Structures are given as C-alpha cells and as structure tokens.
C-alpha cells in the first residue's frame, strides 16, 4: 500500500531502525512497508500513526 513513511522519517530525522524500534517491529518490516511489499496490520498502522501523530488515512493511501 502506498505510504509517505519515508517522508515522515525524513521530517523527524529517523532511520528505519529508529522507527522499527519505536513501533516494536524489525527494520526489515519498516523497509518492506516503505517499499509497498508488505501491508501492516491494523495494530501496527495505529502504532505508526500514533508515532507520527497523524491519522492512518493521512499516511496510507489504499487506492494506489
């Protein structure tokens, strides 16, 4: 699923590893989400939205 997580990481100056640890998944999982090869669970999507202080639909675009 298309997402703007890389842009949000750039804004907060976080690496994939930083974000992965913050939401308690592996760096490979963050990488797979950013490359649109893996769609996160609802729980992880909420954790990501909470981390970036936004709504899930602001971060993910299901139409793409």
């Amino acid at each position, binding site marked *: 699923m298309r997402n703007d997580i890389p842009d949000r990481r750039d804004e907060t100056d976080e690496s994939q*590893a930083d974000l992965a640890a913050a939401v308690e998944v592996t760096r*490979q999982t963050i990488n797979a989400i950013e490359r649109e090869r893996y769609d996160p669970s609802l729980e992880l999507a909420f954790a990501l939205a909470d981390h970036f202080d936004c709504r899930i639909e602001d971060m993910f675009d299901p139409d793409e």
Partner: protein
Amino acid sequence: MSEHTTSATARPSTRKRYKRIAYGLLGAGILALWIGIAVDRFVLGVALYWAGGLGMGLVQRFSPVELYDERDGTISRKASQTTMNVFAYVFVLGTPGGLALQESGLVTLPGEFYGATWTLFGVFVVFGASHLYYKRRT
C-alpha cells in the same frame, strides 16, 4: 531525538542476540547429535539434541523481547500455505496415480510409497483439525 530513539537502538540488537542464542542452542544440539552418532553415543547425542531444541523453545518463550514480528508471522503463514498446497497436489494426484500405475502392472510401488501416503494423510488430518479449531475461534 525522542525517547523512542533510545529504545530503538537497544531493542533490535537485543532481538538479534536472543535469536542467535536460540538458533545457537539448536545448532549445538544438532552438532551434538552428529558427534554422538559418530562416536557411537547415540542416546547421549539425542538427549543433547533434545536439550538444544528445548533450550531454543525456552529462549523463544521467555526472552524479554519479541523475537519475531508480524511480518515474520505473515511470511511463515504464506510459506506454510504454499507448502500445504504443494503437498495437496502431490497427495491428491500422486496417490491415485501411483495406485493406478501399480494396478496396470507398469510399476511395483515400494513400501515407502505407502508410508509417504499415510504420512501425508496424517498431515492433512492435523491440518483439517487445526483449521476447524481456528475457524470456530475466529
């Protein structure tokens, strides 16, 4: 950066460390089994192998961090599904095919064929039972 970042650097290395310990214990158990067979101490080798496997399970169960995340679970489920699909074709097509060839006199099936067939049958019985169990719970 934020407090997230502090735990960020610690947690992956902790996960890796516990994964290494878990797989290391299993690897040591397998090595012990091989050595036990080589030096004709088979029972001791099997005991050490079981201890390694048990140790791996205990580390996975009681490690302070989750060793596998949701993507690992998804990958395992997809791999399991593919494996079951492959063996379903082998079982559904191979078993009657083999028996038909035997009946036609073209081949004489070895005992291993029947052993493999019953093993696959058992696997699918377990799959069906667990499928039913999770269907009722989900």
